[in-house]
């Protein structure tokens, strides 16, 4: 092989691998990303049933209902951003810090009856922490106060640990 052919072989392989990677990435971006919506957005322009989305807001106080036996693992509650509420059904174990009036992010699909069927629930992991998406969703509705009862703004804190994405429970 001449030097030129060698270089061509090298560049060809590199381009092939990069092309493969680009194809994989584009394909995956089409299929496996999940959009985040606030309850208002879900109610006003619902996504197609079956599309995976995330919704975030506060667990509306007084709406958490545990299903009766034998299906004791199912929980119903409303997620609110202060403007609109979305009813959520979830089967499984809830995160440690899932509480009424606290921030929550649910991932799942919207049913045709307007109910949100969640299979992943992310809750905050620290008293002083609120998922960023929830803060933004609440701010959009004007419901966010920097030092409100819903959770102090993270900026004032020294050390927070919280991993919504590490808190997912299946």
């Amino acid at each position, binding site marked *: *092989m001449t*030097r030129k052919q*060698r270089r061509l*072989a*090298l560049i060809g*392989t*590199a381009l092939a*691998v*990069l092309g*493969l*990677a680009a194809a*994989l*990435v584009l*394909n*995956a*971006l089409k*299929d*496996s*990303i*999940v*959009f*985040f919506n606030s309850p208002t957005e879900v109610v006003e322009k619902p996504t197609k049933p079956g599309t995976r989305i*995330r919704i975030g807001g506060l667990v509306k106080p007084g709406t958490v209902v*545990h299903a009766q*036996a034998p299906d*004791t*693992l199912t929980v119903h509650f409303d997620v609110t951003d202060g403007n609109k509420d979305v009813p959520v059904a979830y089967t*499984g*174990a*809830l995160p*440690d*810090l899932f509480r009424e009036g606290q921030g929550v992010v649910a*991932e799942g699909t919207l049913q045709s009856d307007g109910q949100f069927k969640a299979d992943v629930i992310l809750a905050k*992991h*620290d*008293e002083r*922490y609120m*998922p*960023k*998406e929830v803060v*933004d969703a609440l701010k959009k509705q004007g419901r966010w106060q920097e030092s409100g009862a819903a959770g102090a703004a*993270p*900026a004032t*804190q*020294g*050390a*927070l*640990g*919280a*991993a*919504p*994405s*590490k*808190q*997912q*429970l*299946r």
Partner: protein
Amino acid sequence: MIPELGHFALVLSLGLALIQASVPVWGARRRDPALMAVAGPTAIGQFALTAAAFLALVWSHVVSDFSLATVFENSHSAKPLIYKISGVWGNHEGSMLLWVLILTLFGALVAAFSSNLPATLRAHTLAAQAWIAATFDLFIVLTSNPFVRLPQAPFEGRDLNPVLQDPGLAVHPPLLYLGYVGFSITFSFAAAALIEGRVDAAWARWVRPWALTAWMCLTLGIAMGSYWAYYTLGWGGWWFWDPVENASLMPWLAGTALLHSAVVLEKRDALKIWTILLAILTFSLSLLGTFLVRSGVLTSVHTFANDPMRGIFILGILVLFIGGAFGLFAWRAPVLRQGGLFAPISREGALVLNNLFLVTACATVFVGTLYPLALEALTGQKISVGAPFFRATFVPLVVPLLLAMSFGPLLPWKRGDLYAVAQRLIGSMAIAVIGIAASFAVDGRGPVLAPFGLGLALFVMAGAIADLIERTGLFRSAFTTAVRRAGGLPRSAWGTMVAHFGVGLAVLGIVGETQWGAERITAMKPGQTIAIRHYNLTFEGVSPRQGPNYHELVGKFTVRRNGEVIGEVEPSRRVYPVRGTTTTQAALMTRGASQLYVSLGDPGAGGETVVRFYHKPLVLLIWFGPVLMMLGGALSLSDRRLRVGAPKPARSRAAVQPAE
């Protein structure tokens, strides 16, 4: 008084860093040995001063000096001593100080062990290192000073986030930082090489021990973080594709590529520009990781504080170093002379392929991590890119890499014969095929991909052993000859074998855990029994217990197999009253390399408790593999040829003296 001394030492260290960043460079321009020699003592002095500052902070945490804001925010007098110490780096300010401590440690090590380096290369390397140290010192002093006093000292602190109160977390960040920040040395070496316009085999020989050391620490650090997440977060996941995990995976991938391309540079004097680029890229990804974690653009367990000033400052550092290094690269790289030639099918070719796949895999992780941030900044759309994305992109790129991994070490340098190598790997292929067939026979209705994953893992492990057999001539010559040859093999060859075997082992663990694992979530009353795989677990009830700074509810389960009691597990839920936080303490029962994993959920209505059970076959191999990889790195590091202070043959010494 002690904190003020610490603060003062930190500022002095900044001053020394500025001297070290400028005087040696000037000395190198004027060819003045005295000025260049300034770099050594200043590097060691910087480390001593930063260590003093760090110890002052540790002291303040140990004695619970709540007049310091960081101690007040992150400590509590009732906390056990180990967590008082680990709490030092369990927050933004302290962890940045640890970052700089390790940065200066590596600078001091280079200063101490580089007497055989050409004077200008040493001066430039240490100066580059000092630039990094100076900017981060400045960052700490201006935006994240850990020694800030509160106007009035409170009586009690606010405690460390309970999730972080864990022995694994006491060791994980320092190890990870040793890896992350260790790559600063290869970065500085690359910058120095670019300034000098000279890269040769000797350069690779000096850089490789540092790259190896950093890589070993990073490997172990990532594995340890993964194990921590596995047993503390309560649902048995060990890798989450969390942006912060990706931030440590990216430098690891680039660093692994760097290790392999440095071999080519050292042995064959080829891939010069590429190796330099990788050295820059690896540390740039470390810096990017620091930015992602520290700036607050991401929210995760690792993101401590969100002060926009800090984010902008780190972004500035990022732009300065990455931009500066790539600018230097664009300007100087054409000066570098092209090195040795090789055919596409050769050891070099295999290592190029390895680099190609590692870097591409790293790029997909990069896209998956940063795309959501970019999209939100540009369009305001919020998306999450999770495990499905990475499974669809990262995994298909790693599979060919693993397949090629067994071929590489068997190929000769310069020009090889793929067919001949394939013949030597027939045994490994046979083992893989038998493994696939056997696993189909045993578990034909299981997941389809599992047997192939198993086959791949077996092929990688058998391939590593085939390399050893080939090198020692086992089965071809007398056994004693083979043993003698094995003893005579260079340690770096053993290192390659052990590390590659470790990769196979980790793959086996991943296949076992993801494909054959079982899980059950159920609400249980005391006395009830649940079956998972061939185990029966009986719930005996819950009882309260008191810890030093928490109280917990402990569940008790009796584990039976075939009717016989084989043990008890006690998962618990802890409540830390100071922060009002609940954590889940999973109970693990290890059986060989597999584990039973039990964790408690909410106490539900009617006396029932939600319990999660997992059976995780071969799960321990996921972490045992990286430990072997680390040991392989250590073996390679102990190779005489690579020993940092080893005398060089006269020929190479003559070759690297700067032309004057």
